[in-house]
């Protein structure tokens, strides 16, 4: 069975240690997490976890049914690429000379990023988008002196909305 990147969304009780329970389950069942984001939702009682991991169809089913059994998990579902929005946020700090500045600015504009911090010797760029866009941007700037990178990992949502009864 071929493995591919799977993205799943998990709604959990907004309580202490719940993240540990989910992550520890992934660890002990042998699933490697590529990225993980956790955030509050519009319901203060719930948090949302988005997990990306390398899996097969069978391992995806296994991890979903195992995670479902956790007492603090309210809902869990895989997000299919075609029906979902995947976004990542990048912050990257580049050590720059005066000469490089305008060339970098041009690349940032093409990618619709923002320069959010500037000093005589450095700049910080902010960029959001799909993983492939962030990867593409990183390739474009890898000839410069990158000193720090921070990526949030994927956060994701299904497109459309059906009112539930």
């Amino acid at each position: 069975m071929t493995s591919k990147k799977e993205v799943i969304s998990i709604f959990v009780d907004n309580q202490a240690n719940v993240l540990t329970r989910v992550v520890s389950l992934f660890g002990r069942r042998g699933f490697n997490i590529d990225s993980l984001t956790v955030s509050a939702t519009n319901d203060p009682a719930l948090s949302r976890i988005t997990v990306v991991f390398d899996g097969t169809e069978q391992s995806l089913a296994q991890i979903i049914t195992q995670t479902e059994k956790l007492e603090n998990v309210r809902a869990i579902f895989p997000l299919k690429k075609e029906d979902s929005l995947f976004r990542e946020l990048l912050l990257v700090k580049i050590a720059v000379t005066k000469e490089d500045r305008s060339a970098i600015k041009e690349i940032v504009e093409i990618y619709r990023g923002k320069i959010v911090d500037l000093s005589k010797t450095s700049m910080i760029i902010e960029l959001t988008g799909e993983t492939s866009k962030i990867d593409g941007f990183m390739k474009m700037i890898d000839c410069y002196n990158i000193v720090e990178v921070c990526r949030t990992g994927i956060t994701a949502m299904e497109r459309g909305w059906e009112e539930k009864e």
Partner: protein
Amino acid sequence: MKLTGSQVIAEILLEHKVDTVFGYPGGAALNVYDALYEYKDQIRHIMTAHEQGAAHAADGYARSTGRTGVVFATSGPGATNLVTGIATAFMDSIPMVAITSNVPNSQIGKDAFQEVSITGVTMPVTKHNFFVNKIEMLPKALHDAFRIAESGRRGPVLVDITKDVTAAKIDYKPGNYQSKPAEVARPTEKELKKVADLINGARRPIIYFGGGVAAGEAGLQLRELMKRADIPATYTMMAAGVIGYDDPRNIGLLGMHGTIAANRAVDKADLLLAFGTRFSDRVALNPKKFAKKATKVQVDIDKAEINKNVHVDYAVVSDIGEFLNGLLPLIEKNEHPSWVKEVTEMKKTTGDVKQGDSDLHPSEVITSICDLTDKETIYVTDVGQHQMWAAQYLKHKNTHSFITSGGLGTMGFGYGAAIGAQIGNPNKRVIHITGDGSFHMNLNEACTAVSEKLPIISIIMNNRVLGMVYQWQTVFYDGRYSSTTPERKTDFVKVIEGFGGTGYRAENPEQFREVFKKALQQEGPVWIDCKIGREERVLPMIPGGGTVEDMIIG
């Protein structure tokens, strides 16, 4: 009514009909134990020699009574000593509630004396756990603990309570708790019809069932299905006793040390009905080749067990009792004379094997025990060769009468579990079958058996080696006996006498029968040191990852 946290614990135990608990006191647990003193007329507390023994006792109590086992321990080492017992219960899906005390909340996280984060430690081996550091959280956490332990696929839950909470006061009115009937997974009509069609159309069907059938109390329905559709059945160790040993369609234990008949039948079957079982690596040794000719149907209460180890063709997520109740009316009376004959003929070729130079063989010991005890007897084992001999040779008749650590394989489980079983079943005979290796781990619980006047008979299969590992070293490691021949000189008779119990020795079958009869007359614990040959092996045997083709028979 204003109650302290500790009184709330006692009241909630009573609300859940708990009248017996096991445990060991300590500093952080002082308030809790003070409440247990106050409630001692309603809640019997059995103090063990070691918290591990208490955890195994709560487990043995649960396995033998079907009720939730409850164990108490103090913070730090008290709590960590429970871990093996909790993990044992977790692997075998046994309902247990462990209540630990922790240091006061003001000291949490400061590496206080006897502080440990037991919720962190037990996260992977509990269904759920609670850290209670506010009195308001306590009632719900305790009620939820029982609900979670007892619902769906059962298992252990731990509630860790800081010492300040055990003293704090809260308004609590006992008796208001109403348990919601747990949601039971049931099959659909379509699922029942599909499985019934497969059964009605099969030519070489076989049932392979596990602990789920015991936990679901579905033995009667299973026997009815075997009879009506004329299907032979094999079981895992967790389900020994669910069908009687003398049932003509019972072909015995499956897997690594299962019968030749069971392993061959599964290999030849055209329909495999896996009921309440999880295709563990001790049964489906080679998951790709297990029951390779069969259409595989799996029925289990836990959705996560479907396709986990072995890919099945059809699966139903359901309580097994509900499933069989729905299925039986759809099953046609059927006969598979040549298939059943073929399978049961194979069963007859599985004889007792005697090796070693001793005058006393394990099969003789176990056969004598069966002859001299009544059919209500509860057998408890430790882990190793003696456990497999017990699983193979005991004449199992009743569900919940064979208590053994299946999934975790916990050496040292037996004596604590036997104590729990005897406390839970004061009118039944409890026989503890152990080996000298396992027994050395937790024989300290003899003091508990003496204090509580428990007439548990421990049968020590004493081969002076760590038998199971020794056997593997013989077969797979050219007899390089690394750390399995400890040359211990333990005199078990003197040891139990030192504890205040009775000890006997047996070196041949006649002697064994004679001392066993004497043991049955004693009022406290008895140990019988049985001299077994060290070359005695557990057979048949299929090496890990192997198939029926790799079976070692003699």
